[in-house]
């Protein structure tokens, strides 16, 4: 019984996270200006990281945790580089 409740709640949470990723993707594709796309990309990677954590709960392994950690690290670096590019027009001066 509890296993079933947990399974359905997990499925629902994954669907909501996927929908959130779709919203962020829509903002990346449509975003009227470049800074909107950068914020959409930032949201997209956070949502993908949360989705990976829920996949880890579903499979019961720790592998997904490491993938989520790598996504969090690289996402920060990429967003900082994109913000620098918006400010200056080049990443490394």
């Amino acid at each position, binding site marked *: 019984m509890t296993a079933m409740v947990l399974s359905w709640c997990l499925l629902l949470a994954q669907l909501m996270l996927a929908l*959130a990723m779709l919203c962020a993707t829509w903002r990346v594709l449509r975003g009227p200006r470049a800074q909107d796309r950068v914020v959409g990309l930032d949201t997209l990677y956070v949502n993908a990281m949360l989705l990976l954590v829920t996949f880890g709960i579903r499979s019961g392994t720790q592998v997904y945790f490491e993938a989520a950690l790598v996504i969090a690290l690289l996402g920060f670096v990429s967003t900082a580089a994109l913000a620098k590019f918006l400010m200056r027009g080049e990443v490394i001066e």
Partner: protein
Amino acid sequence: MIPQAAELPWFAALPVALLLLGGAGLTLIGSIGLLRLRSFYERVHAPTLATSYGMGCILIASMIFFSVLQTRLVIHEVVIGAFIVLTTPVTLMLVARAALHRDRLEKNATVPPSINQPAT
């Protein structure tokens, strides 16, 4: 069906399920806000709902799940949480300042002028 979930007692499964639903719901609300709000400076605020409470709820659910399952304290999700909490203000501040810089370069009337340079 989750393979390990049958071993989980109800007093652990129930908080995990509720925290997962709450965290995912908050993340979805933040992303909808990113989609629906009008100006860029309003939109910057919406995703922080996902990076604060949404992320916290889902990571705590994961911690409870693995701690009860392995009957030991599994809290390495704290690393992700601390990292995101530290980096989100930095990135959003950088992006917002870049956007402000671009708007001022374009003489956009919707943003206030800089304090250092009086408006012409």
